[in-house]
């Protein structure tokens, strides 16, 4: 497939059509080379609404409350999962604390027919896709490797190997283009994954085939204990330029900006104009997973400085200033949060261990005599204990 042939087959993907949204490339072009380049921001850490020439957004009070609700419930779910790990109910948990705006903003930009390829921390995006949050916990409890059907919500299973899914997203997007569909694909990955060859290869393939894919990098500053400086010498969004597509850096703690920028990138993909790299500049407030200890590798002051940029607090400030939400809303949401926490806690504790024979299930789609033989041996071995017990 070539760019030309795609355009020829689907004229409405032609680049002749004038873009309604200004290309994010302009933003990156005028960004100075510095450690903290300009961010697309629509809501300041103080909760002030600001305008950006390339990205406008106009939301109703109800939509704003919806984004707030999504972030609060996602944080509550995440806190519950962390607690469940501490209580021994989960083997591991990868917290998204601090990244709610990046995930809810980008997740709410998606259409139902778009397809999401997450890493293993996209609990907020899963929430936006309608995946029941309790399904996210199976793999962390150790009862499965992903407890949902990817095609029910167009939300692929979590991928543990860093960056692998960016290629799956690109291939899927190539298929979308072949099918003549006007949906888009989004691939999530982190700043650490940006060092992986697969991410670079997915940039190459998506550019060459003009695939309708948005690369959404959540730069949360830390890849386990390694800071971004150990991954890159240039701001990550600038990588895109070398591959021939636009890159844009957005304030990842600003849910409005994440929504606007992702929506723009998705629309660009739908118009047949190819991939975009969105770097959401955010911060992982907790540990990489419950297995590591961030106090060993980063200063407390750093986290404190980012707490002042908290994505949920700033939207709450804005909602209050705008009188877009009253006390009754916040109280009801608090009750809803507690109910969600309780539901998650009960669901995890009630989650049964898988049947022993599940070891052999689904190793192959078309079956395999070796698997059948080993399944039979295993069953006979298990049965021998039952006989001994009698």
């Amino acid at each position, binding site marked *: *497939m*070539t760019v030309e*042939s795609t355009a020829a087959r689907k004229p409405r993907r032609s680049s002749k059509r004038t873009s309604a949204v200004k290309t994010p490339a302009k933003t990156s072009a005028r960004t100075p080379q510095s450690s903290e380049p300009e961010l697309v921001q629509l809501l300041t850490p103080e909760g002030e609404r600001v305008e950006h020439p390339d990205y406008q957004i106009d939301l109703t009070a109800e939509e704003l409350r919806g984004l707030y609700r999504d972030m609060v419930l996602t944080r509550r779910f995440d806190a519950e999962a962390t607690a469940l790990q501490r209580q021994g109910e989960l083997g591991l948990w990868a917290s998204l604390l601090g990244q709610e705006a990046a995930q809810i903003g980008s997740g709410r930009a998606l259409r139902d027919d778009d397809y999401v390829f997450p890493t293993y921390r996209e609990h907020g995006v899963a929430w936006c896709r309608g995946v029941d949050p309790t399904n996210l916990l199976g793999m962390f409890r150790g009862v*499965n*490797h*992903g407890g949902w*059907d*990817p*095609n029910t919500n167009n939300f*692929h*299973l979590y*991928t543990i*190997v860093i960056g*692998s899914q*960016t*290629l*799956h*997203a*690109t*291939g*899927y*997007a*190539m*298929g*979308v283009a*072949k*099918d003549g569909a006007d949906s888009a694909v989004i691939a999530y990955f982190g700043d650490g994954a940006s060092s992986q*060859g*697969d991410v670079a*290869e*997915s940039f*190459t*393939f998506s550019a*060459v085939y003009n695939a309708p894919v948005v690369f959404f990098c959540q730069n949360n500053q830390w890849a386990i204990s390694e800071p971004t400086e150990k991954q890159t010498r240039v701001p990550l969004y600038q990588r895109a330029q070398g591959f021939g597509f636009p890159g844009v850096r957005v304030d990842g703690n600003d849910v409005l900006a994440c929504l606007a920028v992702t929506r723009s990138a998705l629309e660009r993909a739908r118009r047949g104009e190819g991939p975009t790299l969105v770097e959401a500049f955010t911060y992982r407030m907790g540990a990489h997973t419950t297995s590591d200890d961030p106090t060993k590798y980063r200063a407390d002051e750093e986290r404190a400085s980012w707490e002042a940029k908290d994505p949920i607090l700033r939207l709450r400030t804005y909602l209050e200033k705008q009188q877009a939400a009253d006390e009754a809303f916040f109280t009801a949401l608090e009750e809803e949060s507690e109910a969600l926490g309780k539901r998650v806690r009960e669901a995890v504790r009630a989650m049964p261990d898988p049947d022993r024979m599940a070891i052999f*299930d*689904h*190793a*192959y*789609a*078309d079956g*395999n*005599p*070796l*698997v059948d033989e080993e399944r039979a041996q295993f069953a006979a071995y298990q049965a021998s204990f039952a006989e001994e017990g009698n």
Partner: protein
Amino acid sequence: MAMEKMSIAKALNESLRKALDTDPKVLIMGEDVGKLGGVFRITDGLQKDFGEDRVIDTPLAESGIVGTAIGLALRGYRPIVEIQFDGFVFPAYDQIVTQLAKMHARALGKIKLPVVVRIPYGGGIGAVEHHSESPEALFAHVAGLKVVSPSNASDAYWMMQQAVQSDDPIIFFEPKRRYWDKGEVETDSIPGPLHRASVARTGSDLTLVAYGPMVKVCLEAAAAAQEEGKSIEVLDLRSMSPIDFDTIQTSVEKTGRLVVVHEAPVFYGSGAEIAARITERCFYHLEAPVLRVGGYHAPYPPARLEDEYLPGLDRVLDAVDRSLAY
């Protein structure tokens, strides 16, 4: 009945053509597979006839080739990807092992990965480093993958058809030094199952098991042994995962002796697996320990030494003699 004599290369080309023709979801992807038709011309003429949308020249990035093929399979396509040479598959090994092999199980069967990975493999063509390796055991060891290798034109034609139709990922090893060997292909007949071994020659004194490029060597060894009055049965394994142990067992119960031959290093190779399983199954039938003939635990040597490294007629016959001497 349409019977035609053609090379393995031509049989693969015809088979790929038929696959593209039969199912619009079938795609071919790889480096140089388009205008050039692949470095071995296996995809010759296919892009011309099916277009750049179906026969896709890719960037030079093996992980990217397999990784995007996985994405296309998730979208409902059936990609057949070409890895240019055996030693070049390793950049894609991560995608094959951690994603392609396991995604069906990870999704509890909800998604299927009908991807064929074609790899021209093995030595004997005087190539430079990384162009002569036999990494089949590395793939056969991984649950979720199926690994096959034809040794003749008819199998090349039909096994490719079956691989494309499989809902499991198939690693399809093509014996590159046999590409130009000709054989009869019956293009209308209904073939046996993809993973069944075949009896390439019947005999009563000893069983030789081989696959891919070594089948021919073993048939020549059996013919030479015949002149010395030894009756050797030759099995063409065809599939290295799963392995058709029943066919091997039947043969060994008859002959009492087994020698496994492959180009890959003997150490941890498929011969070890076959020896262990057949020893278990045929302990009271064996007249001699199962012997193995293969490559050494050394990097594949420069081309001027490959005849020393690769099992030839003499090394196979030597193993036959040792087995018969027990």
